[in-house]
């Protein structure tokens, strides 16, 4: 498909630029970069490869006829400079942490130190192969052993698996280990229910379901905390575990956490920590010390590894001594001064990753821990908490506040007051984009009406926070005086508000490949 055809009047695809019939123009403020398939021209190529230096083997002799691809895959035909420009231009259409404030609640969009990326790219790390003999990868094994020890120290747990590639995979891994633990006590058949507060991330119930268990949701109290009476009513002989996010998704610390954990343990359940909000706890509270049995951490949140547009993440699972035998195999161990992968784990739940997890992410997190040290780890949490409370203090009179607690590293406001102007939280979110600020998380947690979840992280300066407050106040003035400005926002972004309904109705999920030469 060519750019001209995509812009043809009467054709279904929307035009690639604002004016139908004309080629897209870069630099007008609002553009849409052509697709590679539109840039493709027969005969162009982006790489030069060496000629074969070995005697030829005819493909057709070696492979059965049915398996010989008849038509080459219709991939783009584009020169190297065109590929570079394409992706460079596309990159300019993204908001990102290195450009500006990204207060996306629950995602901990802190600064990602560049030294971390550079260390992960060291040849010795990047080119190490997962099936190489242990002796050939001592450096990587030492690093994996080291970060496991550090994460255990930071959380208080006894042991750790580094395999889960994301928080959600960590949750599933945790649930499978909890299941194995109950089975080892002869309670596999009876304990099959996991209690999840209604404020939890959607991954929690989905992960429970994947582990073959059922979910019992409990309502939070008016302050967004776990309701002890609701918990008591839900606990029973079928309780396998309770998943708790601490601080809660409302950004507040469960004041009764010790009592909550005591009651769950008394009922025979395990207590799982969803570590999504660990940026409030590191160096201040060790989850195992207060009774949690297992937890996952998100290294791409608390430990500064870049989010990469949606992965790679890393969701190590930490466990108590009692749960250690059930860790996925292999586990990195130290033996006679050398590091090795221990495959002899007869009670293991199995593997959750094809190899050893997202090691490139582990290298970044390890580097980060070294750069912080013990004091730095605690300072991160303290400054994250201070930043969030400062913002909350300056914004709470402008919105509805679901509770009166100090927050931890993030807080949730309600935009329901916008309704009197015929507006929603979404409109404020979109208008923020016009000021070069990423919107907070909106409409989550589900228990707060018109929720607006703000997490500044520790890496924002006071000046940045003040600027954000000024912008929010201006937007609220606009809401009262000229609500259309919010409804029509954003106007300064590469595209204006996108029609998500149309995308789902007309489902176009792939391009038309370049025409045949």
């Amino acid at each position, binding site marked *: 498909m060519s750019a001209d055809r995509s812009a043809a009047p009467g054709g279904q695809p929307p035009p690639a630029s604002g004016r139908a019939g004309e080629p897209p123009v870069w630099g007008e403020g609002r553009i849409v970069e052509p697709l590679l398939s539109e840039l493709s021209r027969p005969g162009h190529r982006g790489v030069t490869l060496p000629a074969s230096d070995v005697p030829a083997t005819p493909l057709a002799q070696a492979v059965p006829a049915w*398996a010989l691809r008849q038509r080459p895959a219709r991939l783009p035909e584009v020169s190297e400079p065109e590929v570079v420009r394409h992706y460079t231009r596309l990159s300019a259409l993204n908001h990102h942490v290195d450009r500006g404030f990204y207060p996306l609640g629950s995602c901990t969009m802190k600064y990602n130190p560049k030294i971390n990326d550079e260390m992960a790219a060291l040849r010795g790390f990047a080119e190490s192969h997962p099936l190489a*003999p242990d002796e050939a990868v001592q450096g990587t094994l030492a690093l994996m052993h080291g970060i496991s020890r550090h994460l255990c120290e930071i959380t208080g747990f006894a042991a750790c698996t580094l395999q889960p590639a994301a928080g959600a995979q960590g949750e599933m891994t945790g649930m499978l280990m909890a299941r194995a633990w109950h089975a080892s006590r002869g309670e596999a058949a009876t304990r099959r229910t996991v209690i999840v507060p209604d404020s939890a991330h959607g*991954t929690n119930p989905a992960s429970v379901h994947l582990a073959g268990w059922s979910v019992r949701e409990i309502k939070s109290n008016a302050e967004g905390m776990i309701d002890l009476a609701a918990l008591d009513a839900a606990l029973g002989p079928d309780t396998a575990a309770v998943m708790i996010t601490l601080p809660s998704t409302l950004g507040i610390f469960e004041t009764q956490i010790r009592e909550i954990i005591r009651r769950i343990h008394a009922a025979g359940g395990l207590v799982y920590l969803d570590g999504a909000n660990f940026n409030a706890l590191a160096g201040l509270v060790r989850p195992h010390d207060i009774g949690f049995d297992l937890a996952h951490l998100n290294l791409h949140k608390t430990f500064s590894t870049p989010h*990469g547009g949606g*992965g790679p993440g890393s969701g190590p699972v930490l466990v108590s001594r009692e749960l250690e035998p059930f860790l996925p195999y292999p586990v990195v161990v130290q033996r006679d001064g050398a590091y090795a992968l221990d495959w002899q784990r007869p009670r293991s739940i199995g593997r959750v990753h094809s190899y050893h997890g997202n090691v490139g992410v582990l290298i970044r997190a390890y580097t980060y821990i070294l750069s912080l040290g013990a004091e730095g780890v605690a300072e991160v949490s303290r400054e994250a908490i201070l930043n969030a409370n400062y913002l909350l203090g300056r914004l709470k009179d402008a919105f509805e506040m679901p509770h009166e607690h100090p927050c931890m590293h993030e807080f949730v406001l309600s935009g329901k007051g916008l309704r009197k102007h015929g507006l929603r939280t979404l409109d404020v979110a979109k208008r923020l984009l016009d000021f070069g600020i990423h919107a907070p998380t909106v409409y989550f947690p589900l228990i707060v009406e018109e929720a607006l979840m703000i997490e500044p992280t520790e890496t924002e300066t006071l000046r940045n926070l003040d600027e954000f407050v000024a912008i929010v106040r201006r937007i609220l003035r606009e809401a009262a005086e000229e609500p259309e400005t919010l409804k029509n926002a954003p106007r300064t972004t590469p595209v204006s508000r996108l029609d998500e309904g149309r995308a789902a109705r007309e489902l176009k999920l792939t391009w038309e490949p370049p025409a045949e030469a």
Partner: protein
Amino acid sequence: MSYVGRSDAERKQMLESLGLRDFDELLRDVPAEARLQRRLDLPGPLSEIEIRAELEALAARNDAAAGAVSFLGGGMYDHYIPAIVPRLMLRSEFITCYTPYQPEVSQGTLTVIFEFQSMIAELTGLDVAQASLYDGGSAVAEACLLARAHTDRDRVVVAGGLHPSYMDVLKTIVGAEHVTHVRAAGGVAPAAEIARELGPDVAAVVLAYPNFFGVVQDGLPELAAQAKAAGALTVACADPLGLALLTPPGQWGADICVGEGQPLGVPPSFGGPGFGFMAVRKELVRRLPGRLVGETADHDGRRGYVLTLQTREQHIRREKATSNICTNQGLLALGAAIYLAVLGKSGLREVANLCFQKAHYAAARAQQAAGLQLAYAQPFFREFVLELPLPAAEALRFGRSQGMLVGVDLGRVAQGWKNHLLVAVTEKRTRAEIDRWAECLAAAVRAPRPDGARAGTR
């Protein structure tokens, strides 16, 4: 700390604005007995200069640091990565953003994913691909979960020759009791035995293409047809680079194609991050796990991209979601998209062909120089198994002393395979390196064994 821009005066000012004098007043909800009363026992803090020294020293303890010549494969390969791939991937605009929840400021990421989906669909010969999964193993598991939901059946039949750790991940996630493994004999699972397993309770049959031993198994179209007749879906687990030369699974009857994407421009990095991919026939699109990007228009009629069909996903459906997957391996999918774009239609085929040619040369050299035969007389792409007259671990030890990683010791993967060496040959290997590798194996075969015996040649 240099990552936090805060002076004592500012800290004081911020606390004062809250009517507080001491930071700890903000922690009043945290019971005293829950607070850590000591400093953590961690190394550091280290400066960048010190960190660099420490990490470089660690990396130097890996053979790869000295540029060991690698014949390792088994799902991850030593392919050449064009310079523009890491350069573009590491741009702040791509690496420091998150899931494109606000599409108006995420068109870069969204367009990339749309292009990635398109290229994966084209390579696999299927209608639709999603935005990537964690890795090859989880992609196989998610494909089987999809098939189980679609067919409302429980059992999954796996043809032996699937990557053993994908098999492990599949069993962990789907449950070993639901997985029937038809064991490989002579490098492939016998077709008749696979067909015999296709009962009315079978949701999917999983066929590797090429398989873990490098073999392109014959008769897959017939197996796919038999699976279809039995009401099961066919899941192909494919090597994406192999698909440059091999008939796309969508054309020989696969309903779902998954695999590990690392060969497409991603360094092995001890096994991760790579990425999994998944493409399906269009009837299955609403059952796809993970992110999916679709085309739409903005208010002014400009083309744009958004996350779509989000009602499949966990943040809306919670426990009824098609999967618990939240993110993908976005950055690696970007790397693969750049790789596929710059290699392009002819380049990808040329790389695949170079691998094919060199692997066949290497197999011939192993026989000529060391008298080693292929363990399985089957068609292969860039990888094959040699049966050695000595433990593969010993051949590896000898090779390492020559600066070479001669192959994967299959004894690490399964019992009874300790004399089997899995050898992968990529476009990076020169004829001289392959000759040296064959000599190295020959020398290992001739070398006196630690127990005093000689392995001898066959």
